[in-house]
């Protein structure tokens, strides 16, 4: 009896202290939108990868300094230009306790190459992968691949046994709105594990006590609480309901800093925002002219020169953006300052160009925008709609939540859309491979140029850096002169957090909670 009472008291005490925030170090993290799916191969999208990165790991990874370093593989070597060996750690366990072996790595890479995977183009250069022994993996590429490590850093390793048990061998078909076990549950080797998942509401990460790595954080849990409304997000931050916001609204940075108990950090982000115009369709779905004005370069140039990017930078972005001339940013192989120069803002010659192209009275078109993905995305769209209106192009705005926007974009709806592109491999090839290659999955402008396709092949296979850089430069020149897309700006991101929270800011906007602390 006495022991029972004692146990009760003990239990009560442990409950009271166990749940009090003073003991449990928990970071409450918020951003505009949520991860689209927990399936690590189903969607190649920023916030989705941000969430996966906390629970899943790859063979190699970028550290805080953005340099590639070992993660699940301790070392690697290329025995010839197309054959690589990766030697895995032998002490890695998944969060359910099963050890990770080369079988899981082979399974994951093959999984990421399935038709429903959004990473299949990412690693299309991988020809075969096989397990040599329990902790050695051999990867063969179709051609010499100078950016294999960059590509592998985003291919997360899932447990083969777990995926098989739960009918999630193939990645979730996200475009067809499929739901699978792996889209709402996660089983990785990372420093955290997901214990609760309510899409768009709450995701709880708990510390993975079986993690192999050297624990540098002091957290017991992380809660991701997406808040769509900017003012509500800031209010939640200021009231202490949220500890860190990884997309602090630009208009509120001053207010947050002046609160005394919060801090703001900004860094140029590795992401370029642009507009895409479908040049493949014979007739615009939302047009009124019966043809496709975007097929004419004059029209594309007119729209380009109608955009007053300085006004957007000053008023919409409050200075926190860098006008862009190409869809890539400083730090990426192939970027040059000269390429990044924009055509001049000139509404008068834009009008002339429109008239020359045969649209003196403009035309109608619908612009599709996400409203919870990029910094002030909807406001940028509203602003450009006004600017296009000034040269007579009557644009109606359709702004919707990112999951709908991206889904409809991939299902080839819409003529005119906003998109942002980050370059996780820090190599121009990534941009060309997804946005310019004929028939590529995100090439929704239907750009097709045989010379560019050839140059992309060169980028994939050429190991002579000089020749490769020349190919990149030539490709950039072709697509820039063609005005296949309308680049807007490179984003600058701002993180705001309580002063006792330390999450190092990174230019790819990905927090690494394994390096974070709460005091």
């Amino acid at each position: 009896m006495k022991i029972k009472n004692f146990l009760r008291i003990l239990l009560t005490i442990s409950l009271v202290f166990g749940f009090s925030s003073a003991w449990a170090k928990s970071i409450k993290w918020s951003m505009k939108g949520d991860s689209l799916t927990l399936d690590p191969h189903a969607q190649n999208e920023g916030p989705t990868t941000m969430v996966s990165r906390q629970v899943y790991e790859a063979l190699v990874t970028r550290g805080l300094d953005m340099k590639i370093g070992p993660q699940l593989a301790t070392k690697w070597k290329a025995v010839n230009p197309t054959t690589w060996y990766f030697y895995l750690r032998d002490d890695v366990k998944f969060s359910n306790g099963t050890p990770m072996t080369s079988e899981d790595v082979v399974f994951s890479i093959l999984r990421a190459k399935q038709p429903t995977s959004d990473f299949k183009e990412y690693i299309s250069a991988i020809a075969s992968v096989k397990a040599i022994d329990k902790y050695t993996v051999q990867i063969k590429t179709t051609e010499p691949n100078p950016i294999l490590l960059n590509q592998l850093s985003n291919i997360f390793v899932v447990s083969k046994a777990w995926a098989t048990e739960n009918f999630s061998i193939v990645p979730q078909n996200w475009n067809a709105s499929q739901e699978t076990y792996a889209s709402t549950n996660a089983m990785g080797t990372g420093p955290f594990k997901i214990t609760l998942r309510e899409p768009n509401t709450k995701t709880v990460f708990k510390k993975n006590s079986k993690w192999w790595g050297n624990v540098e954080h002091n957290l017991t849990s992380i809660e991701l609480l997406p808040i769509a409304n900017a003012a509500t997000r800031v209010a939640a931050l200021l009231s202490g309901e949220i500890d860190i916001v990884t997309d602090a609204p630009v208009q509120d940075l001053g207010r947050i800093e002046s609160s005394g108990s919060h801090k703001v950090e900004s860094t140029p982000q590795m992401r370029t925002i642009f507009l895409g115009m479908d040049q493949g369709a014979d007739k615009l779905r939302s047009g009124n002219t019966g043809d496709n004005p975007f097929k004419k370069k004059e029209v594309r140039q007119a729209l380009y020169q109608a955009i007053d990017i300085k006004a957007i930078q000053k008023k919409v972005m409050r200075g926190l953006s860098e006008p862009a001339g190409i869809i890539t940013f400083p730090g990426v192989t192939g970027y040059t300052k000269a390429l990044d120069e924009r055509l001049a803002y000139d509404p008068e010659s834009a009008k002339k160009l429109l008239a020359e192209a045969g649209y003196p009275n403009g035309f109608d078109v619908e612009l599709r925008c996400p409203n919870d993905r990029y910094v002030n995305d909807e406001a940028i769209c509203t602003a450009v709609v006004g600017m296009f209106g000034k040269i007579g192009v009557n644009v109606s705005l359709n702004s919707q939540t990112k999951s709908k926007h991206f889904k409809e974009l991939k299902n080839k709806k819409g003529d005119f859309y906003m998109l942002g592109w980050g370059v996780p491999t820090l190599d121009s090839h990534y941009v060309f491979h997804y946005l310019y290659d004929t028939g590529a999955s995100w090439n929704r402008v239907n750009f097709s140029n045989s010379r560019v396709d050839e140059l992309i092949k060169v980028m994939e296979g050429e190991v002579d850096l000089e020749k490769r850089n020349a190919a990149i430069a030539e490709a950039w020149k072709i697509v820039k002169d063609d005005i296949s897309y309308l680049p807007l700006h490179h984003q600058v991101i701002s993180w705001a957090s309580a002063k006792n929270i330390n999450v190092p800011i990174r230019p790819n906007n990905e927090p690494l909670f394994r390096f974070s602390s709460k005091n």
Partner: protein
Amino acid sequence: MDNQNLSLIERIRDSDVYFSFIKSPTAIISTIILTIIFFCSFFVEFVAPFNPFNPSSLSLMDAFTPPSWSEDGISKFLLGTDGQGRDMLSTILYGSRISLIVGFSAILFSLILGVALGLTAGYFGGKYEMFVMRITDVQLTVPSILMALLVDGIARGLISKESHDEMAIYVLIFAIGISEWPQFARVSRAATLVEKNKDYISASTIIGVSNIKIMFKHILPNILRPILVIGTIGLALAIIAESTLSFLGVGVPPTTPSLGTLIRIGNDFLFSGEWWITFFPAIFLVILAFSINLLGDWMRDTLNPKLN
């Protein structure tokens, strides 16, 4: 029958309603305010200094101009501009027109539906009456905003995204209208029950006047007073409901903003010190709803003291 010879204006002057009106300063003030608002909203193309939806008249560089009396304000924009460089005063006037159209249409819809059901229920009685009145009971347990959200949600599911923006305003009218009709049904049924047993109705029945004629020609005019009173108060509620829904993002699309949408948009700038973007639409909404309510109060006191 001695006032048969007087002209309409003289008849109005002679009435107790007019007397009560000129004795009530609140009624006079709210009527003046409402007249100005209605006038400005319906002739907004001529009254507003800018057309905020004509992109060629906008300049993004004008964005976030504070009201004209503050330090950085310019006289061109009396109440300042929003984040896209639109003149706040014009935007509010255009927005209030949408709010008023939705409010009036919704209340008209629920008035017709509610009175038709309440009147017939009170007149015919029996199982039909019980059925209608139980529906109102059930619906009154559901808060009207929730009801409107439900209707809007269903409509979004049924209507494709492409046509939704055009349909949004009709969906909104239906959603608000359907959530307000039980009030009208209850009041008109109660009033019908009183009238039904009066001698003139019995007389009409005996001489063989048809039911429809009795209901709409004899009973309806006699129950109009209480209906007008709750109709006026309902109008204020409908305008607020519209703003609430738009504030929650399920109302009219941002391309044709109503007052609620404007307040929602402005809310994003509250922390950054651009208070005027949300403050002016909000204060305008308060004045509008307050005036209608005060007028409704006065009408209730004058037309139907029993409702008090």
